[in-house]
């Protein structure tokens, strides 16, 4: 009887504390970041066979940048450079708080019937809890993702790299979906139509 209770309690604690989907444990689904020829981590994709006119593509991309609150850092004819960030969170079951933010540069370029985009120059800015209990950047100068943090923080750093890969892949999928022809134009205003249950 005692044993059952003990094993039940153990199981409960295990389920509660086991880091479900824990910090950025990315599954091996091709979300890992590659290194480019500068030795920088990069998520790079080329989309070919694109049937959408270039001007529509660019318009949609610009709208996407606005939606994501990205900041422009330069435009060069068909090449658009933006700056953005992901929040990296520590998660254990339903408990979570942000560990820091990953700043990145995003580039988007069109050529004929294809376009390409990439996320790179990842820089991690750790968060600290301020006096009011809010998580805020602990420094104005981040650490490049390629920079080795040493043995003591290697595990944590590795989880940041994994989570950046996962979030980059998710961001890329969202970007491609937004640019694709299959997306529906979203209504600017809510419909005023009402449902009547008086007659049926």
């Amino acid at each position, binding site marked *: 009887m005692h044993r059952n209770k003990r094993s039940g309690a153990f199981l409960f604690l295990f389920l509660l504390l086991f880091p479900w989907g824990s910090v950025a444990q990315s599954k091996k689904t091709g979300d890992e970041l590659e290194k480019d020829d500068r030795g920088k981590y990069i998520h790079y994709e080329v989309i070919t066979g694109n049937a959408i006119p270039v001007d529509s593509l660019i318009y949609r991309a610009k709208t996407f940048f606005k939606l994501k609150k990205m900041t422009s850092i330069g435009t060069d004819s068909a090449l658009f450079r933006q700056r953005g960030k992901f929040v990296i969170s520590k998660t254990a079951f*339903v408990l979570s708080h942000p560990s820091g933010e990953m700043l990145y540069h995003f580039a988007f370029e069109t050529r004929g019937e294809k376009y390409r985009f990439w996320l790179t120059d990842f820089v991690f800015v750790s968060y600290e*809890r301020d006096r009011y209990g809010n998580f805020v950047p602990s420094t104005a100068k981040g650490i490049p993702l390629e920079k080795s943090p*040493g043995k003591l923080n290697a595990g944590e750093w590795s989880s940041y790299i994994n989570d950046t890969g996962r979030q980059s892949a998710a961001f890329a999928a969202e970007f491609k979906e937004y640019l694709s022809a299959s997306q529906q134009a979203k209504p600017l205003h809510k419909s005023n139509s009402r449902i009547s249950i008086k007659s049926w």
Partner: protein
Amino acid sequence: MKIKSFFTLSALTMSAATYAQETTTSTPLQISGSADVYYKYDFSKKPNIGTSFASDQNSISLGMLDLALKKTTGKASFVGELSFGPRGQYGSIPNGEGEASNADNSFHLQNLYMSYAFTNKLSVTAGYMSTFIGYEVIVPTGNFNYSTSYLFTNGPFQNAGIRANYVFSPKVAVMVGLFNDWNVYKDVNGVTHFGAQLTVVPVDGWTAYLNVLTGRAAGATGTGSIYDLTTTYQITDKVKIGLNAADYSVTNDNGGYSGAALYLQNAFTANFSLGLRGEYFKTKDVPDLKGSNVKSITLTGNFKAGGLTFIPEVRFDNGSTARFVKNNLDPTKNASQFSLAAVYAF
């Protein structure tokens, strides 16, 4: 049977969690906190230096266990922060709510407030909050040095009140508010204090706060006003500089203090930083008692391993008067101490 019920309960809990994640305007409940312990040895073998919290002589002692909760739903959010242990109870927050019968009944609250963001620029916050005055804070994860400055020890720790924050631009923000007396859960003489903060970000990495808090506390014979400058500048990814300067006066010749503390920090590696704090602190003259001053130098290391930080520290204080004691209890102008603290943040 019990196991089956347990799994049903788990499944329900997980569904609730999933639902919470799908609600776009609600963030998951944030849980964070810290724990700290320390050892301090004063070289006169007497607890001498008037630092807050790390006060026990030649003892492995407790700081506090700190637990913070935060939840945001749409534009509304709340923060509740509880602390248990000497640092987070009688060391920093009031016991009871002012009634004699509750004198030993600590509420354990560091922060308990609600916020509402009316727009992206304007938010209003009400409740019991860590003070906006000063450089150092109660929670050890917020400080580089483990021992605290005289400016911190003599300034307010918490302010209950209501305040409005307006962000003019990423470089300028203003806060104005009405507050209770310093460090009380409830005010017995009304909401008597006015406070304001101007935040300026002159360049990337440099933030400056100009603070004022003024009002007459219950039973006080004068109005106390504190003017405070707190600023930090992350010069490079390794070098950080900070400054805190404050002046506190109570009208009708009731004294006060003034002082300044300079903070220099250098990160030698990702896991090791060294910091130096130099402070000058002076109490003001009151009738029949001349003010005195004290100078203090503190050298602190931070060794980080994951969430754990080891903080070795040496500190030397020199007073204008014999404010410290020697081993034989003779008065002396000098005091020095060593401490080693371990702080874990989660």
